């Protein structure tokens, strides 16, 4: 058992960049839940944190869009966005190339990941790190599932990838924390920014927390796009965490729809067997 912690959090850039414009009480409940997740993660004494994100054309463009990518560097950089816009200062983030390599080789037994020896994090990873490793003292292993530019991998491959990550973690002595970040329903960077399908989110979260594999794999992209926006494609990151903790359930620490953050702000922890 070397996966020691698993959770999911939202990552929308408004969470830090437009913090002052949110309803204070809802925002502070969300921030408090993030802090709780951080403390609980620290209690598990991880050696490294795998962040499964869904980045937004910061590193990966349609000239070579990987379905799955894992970072393999001793240091990363971020945010790539304007520091004022995101309200996070640019900095170097520690990685662990050797540990990445061991994980990548193991994951490659079943999933065809790209690897990246440099990576400029966007808000998709920086916002979670801002709350979960505020001192930037934990080596991060960035992982990406393409959820932006179709064609996208089917959900069952996101599941297979989560299983492969778990298998890789369990094969090494290091203590690994895993955090997925994405979704849930949202229409980011469109005129519908701020729209949130609360009912859809609640049903999805129920299925996710129950780790209901059949229900989770039952979503189709057409339906998700219609009901949960193009931002809903990012449920792939949640599915990978569910797969990595298959058979276990989770606990919801926060779900707060905050329109100016453009997403139902979510914090949850999954039990690790």
């Amino acid at each position, binding site marked *: 058992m070397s996966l020691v912690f698993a959770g999911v959090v939202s990552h929308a850039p408004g969470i830090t960049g437009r913090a002052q414009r949110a309803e204070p009480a809802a925002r502070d409940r969300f921030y408090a839940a993030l802090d709780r997740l951080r403390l609980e993660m620290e209690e598990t004494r991880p050696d490294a944190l795998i962040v499964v994100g869904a980045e937004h*054309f910061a*590193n990966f463009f349609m000239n070579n869009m990987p379905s799955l990518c894992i970072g393999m560097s001793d240091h990363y950089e971020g945010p790539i966005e304007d520091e004022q816009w995101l309200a996070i200062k640019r900095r170097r983030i520690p990685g662990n190339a050797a540990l990445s390599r061991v994980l990548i080789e193991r994951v490659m037994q079943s999933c065809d990941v790209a690897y990246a020896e440099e990576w400029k994090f966007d808000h998709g990873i920086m916002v979670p790190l801002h709350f979960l490793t505020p001192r930037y003292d934990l080596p991060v292993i960035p992982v990406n599932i393409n959820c932006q530019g179709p064609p996208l991998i089917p959900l069952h491959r996101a599941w297979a990838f989560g299983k492969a990550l778990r298998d890789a973690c369990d094969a090494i002595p290091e203590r690994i924390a895993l955090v997925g970040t994405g979704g849930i329903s949202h229409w980011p*960077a469109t005129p*519908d920014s701020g*729209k949130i399908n609360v009912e859809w989110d609640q049903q999805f979260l129920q299925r996710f927390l129950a780790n209901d594999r059949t229900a989770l794999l039952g979503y189709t992209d057409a339906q998700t796009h219609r009901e949960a926006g193009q931002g809903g494609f990012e449920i792939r990151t949640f599915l990978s965490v569910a797969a990595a903790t298959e058979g276990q359930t989770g606990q919801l620490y926060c779900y707060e729809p905050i329109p100016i953050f453009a997403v139902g702000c979510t914090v949850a922890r999954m039990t690790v067997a």
Partner: protein
Amino acid sequence: MSAWRLTSIASPRSARLKAPVMSLYQVQKLIYELNRSPEHRQRFVADRAAVLATYELTAEELQAIEQPDIGLMYVMGVNGQLLMHYAALRGFEWDAYIKAMRDGLAQHGAVRTGLYVAAGSLS
């Protein structure tokens, strides 16, 4: 870049043999490269025409980028995760950026291609 389809329509063979060349890819590539490179942004600010000349763009695209007409770029199908940063680079505050997209829809009609063809319909 081919138009977004949730599932590929089994189009007849003949249709697949003459897909149009789209330059939307080039518009998006420009923004991607601006986002990644401070040097590229500096060159763009200093001599926009010179930078734009290195991309294959239609007259409409060129004008929308130059002006900038964020609303038209949205209607053209530029991915919002790219367009958001171009709007910020050109000085649009958040609310002005959202408004520009709404104005674009009113002025230029529905989104032509990409992820957002159906967006807005649920508002």
